[in-house]
């Protein structure tokens, strides 16, 4: 197996994490995200906004500001597009799609189709598709396009020189306002022997040129679960080790259990409540030592993928010079208006947020932009933030969990609809999962929802809209849902709620009314 050069990723990445073949696709991609020979512009006067980091948050802020006439500088030390485009959502979801195809081939008989005689996984073809998709999506945020929109794009590492200035490529940029959107990077667990043995992260795994025959995934969060399932479906023998009693800690127990069942069905060896204690090389193999309470075991593998969380990129920015408070775990300290301890400087995205998602980075950047340039007073706490883990089935959530509501003294009733009662889920052979909608007790006010469904990520937006706009669950029963769709689960939930309102008194009165009506005829 050929590992990417940056397998160990021991230092912060200052170049795009690209180690792919120098083909035409990749050349086009590099031209978009980090073109060779790019000449940084010369700063001209004071910028309305200097944005550090051209990931989802930085791009949204820079483009939004430029569109409104601001003079904007966008500084990026790596690849335009940040983690999401280059080493995050885009490549992972592309790989997941390929892996789903193989899983469906193997399960063809479940869908009334013949299973192919042979199913040979072409790993290189899967990786080529990643590069192709990444190159295509990179067009919309290409460095040339950003420049055409009036944004001064600087490639290089940025450091604050003072409270109102930043240095990049030996040039000092002065600003009225700045936005720090430097994102986050993979956290690496302190495990004996890991550096010597070598490991993959999301920054390097998509550049593999050969499929690991035996893969140990460390971490049962979204990234670990998604990629464990994807690689398993692509033919790797996968073991996943998680030091908690369930996957996706913080998620609803039933959702995590269904995910665990699903991973097991895919043939993944699951080690919950297990810590990854050490690893050593033995020939071409890596021997990982695991421990579950008092049970010690070893797993032999060819590659280790680490996905135990993300650390904010706050180093080497000389934040002290700017008077911006931060710590290496929580990231940059911001108030509810996303303002740092320097009132001229804001932060958005993974570098300062607990919820490190592309869509949260986007939403927080919009708030920061409004507050920084247009005297806005928008609050981060006002956001309704959904999220989704793109396993099969997907697990999506928005709003409160039951435990959060209980901690606040709010009583909940949960309406649960099983996907096996949704016609479209049955026709598509996707009956596994549920929709749970948490209501304030005695009302139809939606406080939260959790979904486990093949397309939960698509479905969660409906409930997010309802929460955001203050719509009660009953509203879903008045909305005509196209039949058959899996989103019909919401209508079923609304109907189930309405039935709970049908008290014995109402039933009695209704019965009397109908009897009286019959008599009049």
């Amino acid at each position, binding site marked *: 197996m050929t590992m990417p050069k940056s397998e160990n990723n021991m230092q912060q990445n200052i170049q795009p994490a690209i180690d792919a073949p120098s083909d035409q696709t990749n050349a086009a991609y590099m031209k978009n995200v980090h073109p060779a020979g790019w000449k940084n512009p010369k700063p001209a006067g004071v910028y309305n906004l200097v944005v550090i980091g051209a990931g989802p948050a930085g791009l949204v802020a820079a483009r939004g500001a430029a569109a409104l006439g601001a003079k904007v500088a966008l500084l990026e030390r790596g690849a335009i597009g940040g983690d999401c485009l280059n080493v995050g959502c885009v490549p992972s979801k592309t790989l997941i799609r390929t892996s789903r195809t193989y899983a469906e081939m193997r399960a063809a008989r479940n869908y009334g189709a013949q299973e192919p005689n042979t199913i040979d996984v072409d790993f290189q073809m899967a990786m080529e598709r990643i590069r192709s998709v990444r190159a295509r999506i990179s067009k919309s945020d290409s460095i040339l396009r950003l420049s055409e929109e009036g944004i001064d794009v600087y490639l290089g590492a940025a450091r604050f020189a003072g409270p109102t200035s930043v240095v990049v490529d030996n040039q000092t940029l002065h600003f009225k306002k700045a936005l720090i959107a430097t994102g986050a990077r993979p956290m690496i667990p302190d495990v004996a022997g890991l550096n010597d043995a070598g490991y993959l992260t999301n920054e390097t795994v998509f550049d593999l040129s050969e499929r690991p025959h035996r893969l140990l995934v460390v971490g049962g969060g979204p990234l670990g679960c998604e990629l464990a399932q994807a690689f398993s479906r692509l033919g790797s023998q996968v073991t996943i080790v998680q030091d908690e009693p369930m996957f996706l800690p913080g998620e609803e127990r039933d959702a995590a259990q269904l995910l665990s069942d699903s991973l097991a069905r895919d043939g993944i060896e699951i080690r919950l409540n297990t810590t990854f204690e050490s690893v050593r090389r033995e020939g071409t193999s890596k021997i990982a030592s695991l421990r579950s309470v*008092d049970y010690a075991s070893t797993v032999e593998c060819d590659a280790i993928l680490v996905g135990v969380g993300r650390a904010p990129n706050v180093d080497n920015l000389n934040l002290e010079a700017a008077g911006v408070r931060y710590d290496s775990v929580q990231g940059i300290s911001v108030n509810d208006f996303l303002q740092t301890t320097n009132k001229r400087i804001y932060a958005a995205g993974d570098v300062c947020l607990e919820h490190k998602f592309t869509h949260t980075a986007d939403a927080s950047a919009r708030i920061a932009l409004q507050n920084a340039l247009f005297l806005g007073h928008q609050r981060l706490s006002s956001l309704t933030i959904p999220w989704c883990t793109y396993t099969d089935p997907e697990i999506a959530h928005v709003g409160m969990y039951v435990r959060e509501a209980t901690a606040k003294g709010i009583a909940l009733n949960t309406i649960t609809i099983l996907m096996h009662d949704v016609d479209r889920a049955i026709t598509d052979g996707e009956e596994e999962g549920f929709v749970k909608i948490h209501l304030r007790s005695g009302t139809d006010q939606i406080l939260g929802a959790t979904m486990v469904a093949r397309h939960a990520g698509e479905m969660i937006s409906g409930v997010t809209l309802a929460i955001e706009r203050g719509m009660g669950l009953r509203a879903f029963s008045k909305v005509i849902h196209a039949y058959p769709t899996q989103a019909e689960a919401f209508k079923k939930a609304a109907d189930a*709620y309405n039935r*709970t309102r049908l008290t014995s008194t109402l039933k009695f009165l209704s019965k009397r009314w109908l009897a009286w009506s019959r008599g009049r005829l």
Partner: protein
Amino acid sequence: MKSLAPSDEDLLERFQRAAFNYFLEHANNENGLVSDKSTPGAPASIAAVGFGLSGYPIGVERGWLTRDAAARRTLATLQFFWNSEQSEDPFATGYKGFFYHFLDMKSGKRVWQSELSMIDTALLLAGILVVGTYFDQDGASEKEIRHLADAIYTRVDWQWARGAQETLRQGWKPEAGFLHYGWEGYSEAIILYVLGLASPSHPIAADCYAGWTSTYQWENIYGQEFLYAGPLFIHHFSHAWIDFAGIQDPFMREKNCDYFENTKRATFVQQEYARRNPYEYEGYGENCWGFSAGEGPGYRNISIGSKTRQFFGYTARGVPFGPDDGTICPSAMLSSLPFAPDISLAALRHLSSRYPQVIANYALPSGFNPTFQGIDPTGLVTEGRLGLDQGITLLMIENFRSGLIWKLMRQCPTIAIGLSRAGFAGGWLK
């Protein structure tokens, strides 16, 4: 109690007697330990001992055992648990008043590196409280039973079992300390908390119970509003000893329900799941349900028709979220008798007529799986019988027939104190 047709009464008597016999046939009379499973070489389960102790008064009242014989068995059991080693030694019988989940049937020492189990100790203690209440006469044996029952219960250090956390821990091992997970969501643990709250020596505080119940989820599933838990045993185990009809803790007061009614609704959810049978398993229907913890056909994936079926060994099966591999737990359907007698009796009659080989000699196996039978004609019934299945069947049939265990526990001050400290009120607690 519901009046039964003679045929029903006879049927229940046979099943109950067969369940009772497990505790005669698979107990070590020297120390009172009861085998976890009927297969040779199985270790003792302390929870099975708790069920067995609770069963002796039933045997006496039903005329299956003399009072003296029951007292002798009981005394041997209590003397063993009182005198056995309590220490951090990995081969002790217990520590801090708790006991290891599995013990050697002869020596009574810890086996399988099992955990010091809080819930299994609670089920054992519940049985100890039953005999401590039932044996109320003045003879030396019965006096000693009462003394030892009190001593064993009082010795338990419930405060330690919190492990400095908000809720009680599930277990502890001398090699690794507390297992790093507690109780989340509704479970069989009410009896555990009630006993911990009532302790005169090392009680847990009421916030411990509130911390646990804060993880509950009240759900509307298939039109039934109830406190959700998937496996049916969760809705049965604490109820084997405590009559929850009409008494409410703060959570149930808010929901205008009680745990007895809740188990009834959970039973109807199980029946409805089987009726819908979303994964098209063989045999499921309105009279064939019962999804709970127990044995199964073993861990394997097998293609049947157009589907790949995943089968499990011992696991906690539950509905509607699973896991479900087509295995029915017959003791679960019988144990719902007090809560949903009509559908439980109908299921029992269906089982008797449709699957007579499952109930040979009325001794219930842990599970049967008609879907698996389609692959292996001899594989309908799982191997061996489990002490817990026999125990819950024995106690729940009795609670249905006479309410004996519930009546005894109502007289036990420990139960009333624990319930009150948990915030229960109303009904028979008045």
